[in-house]
């Protein structure tokens, strides 16, 4: 999200250039809204989903 051109070159080279141009603007807007929030996350905060391990069947 930080640099869609570099990310696409590394992870999604099949995205055509014209599509990349089209999606850069909404991704940049999302980046602007999202990035400042990341700096405010307290260190110990867990994600909103967590792995729950069920006991083995018959245990």
């Amino acid at each position, binding site marked *: 999200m930080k640099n869609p051109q570099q990310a*696409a070159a590394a*992870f999604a080279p099949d995205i055509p250039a014209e*599509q990349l141009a089209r*999606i850069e603007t909404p991704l940049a807007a999302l980046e602007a809204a999202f990035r400042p929030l990341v700096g405010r996350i307290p260190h110990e905060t867990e994600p*909103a989903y967590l792995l729950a391990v069920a006991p083995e069947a018959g245990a």
Partner: protein
Amino acid sequence: MTIEEAARLLDARQISSAELTRQCLDRIARLNGKLNAYLTVLEDSALGQARRLDEERARGSVRGPLHGIPVAVKDVFCTKGVRTTCGSKLFADHVPDHDAAVVERLEAAGAVLLGKLGMHEMAYGITSNNPHFGAVRNPWNTDCIPGGSSGGSGAAVASDLAYLAMGSDTGGSIRIPASFCGTVGLKPTTGRVSRYGVLPLDFTLDHMGPLTRSVRDAALALNVLAGHDPRDASSSRQPVKDYLPAESSSLRGLRIGVPENFFYDRLDPAVERGVRGLARVAADLGAEIVSVQVPDIAAINAIGRVILLSEAAAVTAPYIHRRGDFGADVLALFDQGRLIAATDYINAQRLRRLYQQEFRKLWRQVDCLLTPCTPTPAPRIGQTELEMGGNKEDVRLASTRLVRGINVLGEPALAIPCGFSDDGLPLGAQIIGRPFEEDVILRAGAALEEATDFRRRPPEEDSPQRRGGRGD
């Protein structure tokens, strides 16, 4: 006619399920060419099912209020032996070997399945302008979108092509079509209704719920749909309630929050008038109206978009090489999701927890929130921008602005009609409640519905360009 009214006629033997089903099928035959609400109509099996349910009733066995009621489901719910497309070319020939939990529960309750409903491709958008199966049209004005992604569900219920239609809601996809089509739409609490057997758009934002003609019908539907399902990892064991509100329309003792920030910014003036009018009605019914400050919903929306883009891109990763099989709008979203870093996705889920905790503090002050559902009435098909207060806004982002965040938080939310625009299109309000307190928002919604006449104005089938006026 609502489910409650039809059930009374069925109980009194004044009509049979076969007759109700035939009436719906006749209306579908007459109107679906205009509306494109149904992708698949199950005429023979529906009539057979209705006759069997009539025989069962004649033997004195009635399963409940949905016994013999014709319903339909969005084409995202798997139906055993019946094509389930997800509105996508990828699944154009997909015939599941099992039913979704929702379909199982509806059938066990005696509902008659009329067919499968049209939707936005892959449930990833709000127009239901589907490049593979055609545009679903709004019954109030066929030049307008019905909303989405459960657009066929909204159009079918609004135009009496089913008594109940199931939808799915990842960022507003039940409530937006309810708002644009003038129906009721309920997004239950996360985990309240099983997602088993639903073709997923996403893993942590998808919710299943009903669109109906009345709030009480939505409550009847939830009575059937709610409950734990071990086949859905997110399914809750929280006890199920009786969700049908008492007949009393008093709201005495209920504290309804009206947000001072975010929700009432950038609205079509008719929407603001409609929702503030509902707040006055609520006060007249005895509710305490409380002005509240809500947490940063714009931030919650951004968090939701990072999560949805990432998870939806993961869901479609095995198919993304078939680029020509996707419509341009959904392909652009899938491509955006592929460029989001794993660290951003995980941090979005951490932020989600923080905002859930912050939002839950609100529930010390109020029992529910009353907000607009969509900031405008239904846009026209093909329209890409909305103008409000001199500012232009993308149609998709504007239409999801007031609803998306609630999927991130997990709270239940109810869309109800709150009036009409000057050109006769329905307007929608939203009631948001505490987790697993669907009974509270249904009580509030039923009382407001009873005190107003917005739901009693169905579109007239022969004049879809209708402007206002009281219907049958």
